[in-house]
């Protein structure tokens, strides 16, 4: 497992193999698009009964990142839950687990398009937030000031083999990969992701190794 350290808008960032983003200077961990309780929503809507383990799997990975880094602040960059109703149906064990992870640190939920409503769990619930010279929101705005960090699009990119979730950034904005276990993705080189970036842009592909390539 190797990380990738890069500079974005004068801030040193670390891309984690898990798909998380670490700002060492601010002791802040950012994760995007957890899509917790996705299998529950599928079942509720009369779709397939998927293996009901993705919430556990996502939380296990998050717990590992928290253990490794001990962040003072965690930002969940939206679509943390697959829908608002899913939070009600979340198991008690998982709610407790989440509460334990939140203990002793600042925890910020950013509103996403899937979970646009207050979260009845610990932590602060906001539309967007700022840390240092970076702004955090769920969906990238068409025109933005430099330093926007967002999620939503689930970018993926392939270097030689199969595409993997990736970070995409240029001088002004950064889009994060989806952290949740049951999430697909769209190619970073295609619409609607590519047009959001300058000609000179980079992808940091996650997985066992975090590798940066020009997009």
């Amino acid at each position, binding site marked *: 497992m190797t990380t990738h*350290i890069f500079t974005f808008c004068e801030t040193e960032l670390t891309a984690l193999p898990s798909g998380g983003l670490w700002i060492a200077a601010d002791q802040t961990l950012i994760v995007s698009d957890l899509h917790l309780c996705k*299998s*529950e929503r599928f*079942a*509720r809507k*009369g*779709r*397939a*009964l*998927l*293996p*009901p*383990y*993705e919430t*556990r*799997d996502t939380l296990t990975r998050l717990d590992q990142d928290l253990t490794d880094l001990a962040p003072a602040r965690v930002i969940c960059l939206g679509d943390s839950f697959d829908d608002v109703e899913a939070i009600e*149906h979340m198991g008690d064990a998982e709610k407790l687990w989440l509460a334990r992870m939140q203990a002793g640190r600042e925890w910020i939920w950013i509103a996403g398009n899937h979970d646009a409503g207050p979260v009845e769990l610990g932590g602060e619930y906001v539309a967007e937030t700022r840390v240092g010279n970076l702004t955090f929101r769920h969906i990238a705005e068409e025109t933005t000031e430099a330093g926007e960090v967002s999620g939503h*699009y*689930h970018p993926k990119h392939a*270097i*030689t*083999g199969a595409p993997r979730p990736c970070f995409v950034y240029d001088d002004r904005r950064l889009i994060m990969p*989806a952290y949740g*276990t*049951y*999430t*697909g*993705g*769209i*190619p970073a080189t*295609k619409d609607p992701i590519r047009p959001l970036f300058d000609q*000179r842009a*980079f992808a940091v*592909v996650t997985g*066992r*190794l975090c*590798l*940066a*390539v*020009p997009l």
Partner: protein
Amino acid sequence: MSALPQTFIDWFNGQGWDIHPHQSDMFDRKDAAALVLIAPTGGGKTLAGFLPTLVELADGAHKGLHTIYVSPLKALAADIRRNLTRPVQEMDLPIRIEDRTGDTSYTQKRRQRVDPPHILLTTPESLSLLTSYEDAPRMFAGVSRIIVDEIHALSESKRGDQLMLAISRLQAMAPNLRRVGLSATVDDPDAIGRELAPSCTACDIIHADPGPAPNISMLVTDTPPPWAGGGAKYAIPAVLEQVKKHKTTLIFHNTRAQAEIFFHNLWLENTDDLPIGIHHGSLSRDQREAVETAMTQGALRAVVCTGSLDLGIDWGDVDLVIQVGAPKNVKRLVQRIGRANHRYNAPSKAMLVPANRFEVIECQAAIDAALAGDLDETRKNSGPRDVLCQHILIRACAGPFDENDLLAEIRSVGAYADLTRAEFDDCLDFVATGGYALRAYDKWQRLMRRPDGQWQLRDPRSAARIRMNIGTIQDTDTLKVRMRGAGKPLGEVEEGFASTLTAGDTFLIGGKIVRYQGIRDLVVEVTKSASQTPKVATFNGTKFATSTQLSDRILSMFAMGEWPDLPAHTADWLALQSEVSKLPERDRILVETFPHDSRHYTCVYGFAGRNAQQTLGLILSQRMEQAGLDPLGFVSTDYATLLWGLEPVTDPHALLRPDGLRDGLDEWLAGNMVMKRTFRTAANIAMLTERNSPGNRKSGKQVTFSSDILYDTLLRYDPDHLMMRITRVEAMQGLVDFSRIEDMLTRTGGAIDHVALDRLPPLAAPLLLEVGKIPVLGSGRDRLEAEKAAELMQKAGVKTQ
């Protein structure tokens, strides 16, 4: 014996036909509960199947549906409708015949359910769909006969299992249903009979006269075939000569991509402008129909085609069949040969065109086997449970059901006769609750039990989703291709291929070179292109494995030392192989190692059959990973396994040592692509994942995720889940017992010939082109990615740590 009515005798006489003995046999035994006819192509098989139906319907007394005809191909249903309509009109019989396939219009389909025809011509999937409607019992109550055409082709796949399950439902709704199967020549007719007949019922089998032996030869050309390659471009002048000499020629290819390239090259050299068309499953319906019509009218001199024309569409005057590429399977060859001279009692004429020199040997072995009537056996997993899961869901769509009744119905199907109660309960539990160790879905079960003990869908709206996903054929996602500004689609390409295209790229479709412009509303838009060097569109290439008996013939051929029966160029090529390396021998293992295209290759000739070579590939790639040789992938054929990686293999004896074969193998196997691919198919068929869902294409791709993720999740949290058990059973079919590999390695005990070369050896060259490559997901790929990333960053002028 009941006599044929006078009207029918008069009609036969009017055609100048005699009734074939097998046709009157079929009529005599029309009351049998199950009956199979084995007849060669052109033996009047269809009429033999339908004669009892036409006679029984002749007096106009029967109301509603009488006979259902099922064929594996949509085109066949339409063709049979045309052929049946003629005698019906000429004898003025009061019979309505209609077809119903995926191509039938929505209004027509609705009307057919309310007012069904006397004879319905359909496909297995459309039949399953019909049984899923709540009004199915009314529609099927009076059905008297079901005719399964080309049953040998269906019985090779899960489509056959699904069809037999659907027939068990029909039988429950129409207890007097009689079953008829029409089959080409097969190695084991009784096996077909056991599949068709309700269990514990004997099946009558009628054999038609097999007709005269076919005339098969290899097409000898002035230019020798290349060492490797699959295009057979070298043979085009010779093929055109043959087309000129014959009335109508069918030119078969093993894959759609090969057919496209060949067709394109053929037209570049077709200076006489002979009318030649192309036909394969990825072309649009309009284009296929245009070719079919031109063919029936005798307007075409040749058609370049694939398996889409394997089965018995009657196209009159085909007098030559050309097979391009080794046929890989003798049964398929015999069926294709049968397409020539579609008349009884005239020998069929066929020519084989090897695409490369190894295929010359394969073609010769296939010709010998076909003339000896030595057909491959079909091996198949009995009673696949993913198909059973889908069947339970289809049953639930039709309304509440009793589990005991359903189990009894299922057990009446030959392939499921031995299904245990526990196995059935497993499938029912999976369908109803997901069947997970973690009982998460009590509130949202897919099926729920009513107070009276019957099962029903919890949410009736889910029936629509289930119906959209009926079927066992695994299509990769495809996108339609259309000329910009013009309405009609040209055909389809795989989504994966479309995603590799950038504006300006060219590719071949329907024999045209087109230029990619972009994707709009999920349609690939193209314009005409004058380019001469197109990229190649990939279609879901079917994996063709050579049957084991062919590889035995090949090994015997190698042992001869000189080859007077083979063309001189191929004999020279074998001589070259024995000079620079060795020819593989029985009971010894030949290992060749060589660098090629900046990779290190290892070729292991075991001639152990594809399943054993595939297993060997898994074992060897694991050992290479452990030894730090960074393997990247492997591919297996019946003869050999070819592995490639970043480091050379220097000690094949250590790689092939028979002890410790199983160490760490389970874990390696669980993470392998073979398992993930198998899981994907099983998950689709059992409807754990959906291929189609209302509006999923519109809402964009981020909602869908790969089935690999579900596999990894189950492996971690619920490794004994039904889907994982199904996956292991199915994957093991494509592999062999490790004990057999241990036996092979122990038996050859160190009889390993290692030849290290500095370039690609002659015999290994064709292996590079094999389809079905298995990537090895190990440290080799990580290293490759890291190197590639560094290179790209350097090119972009970015310094990396």
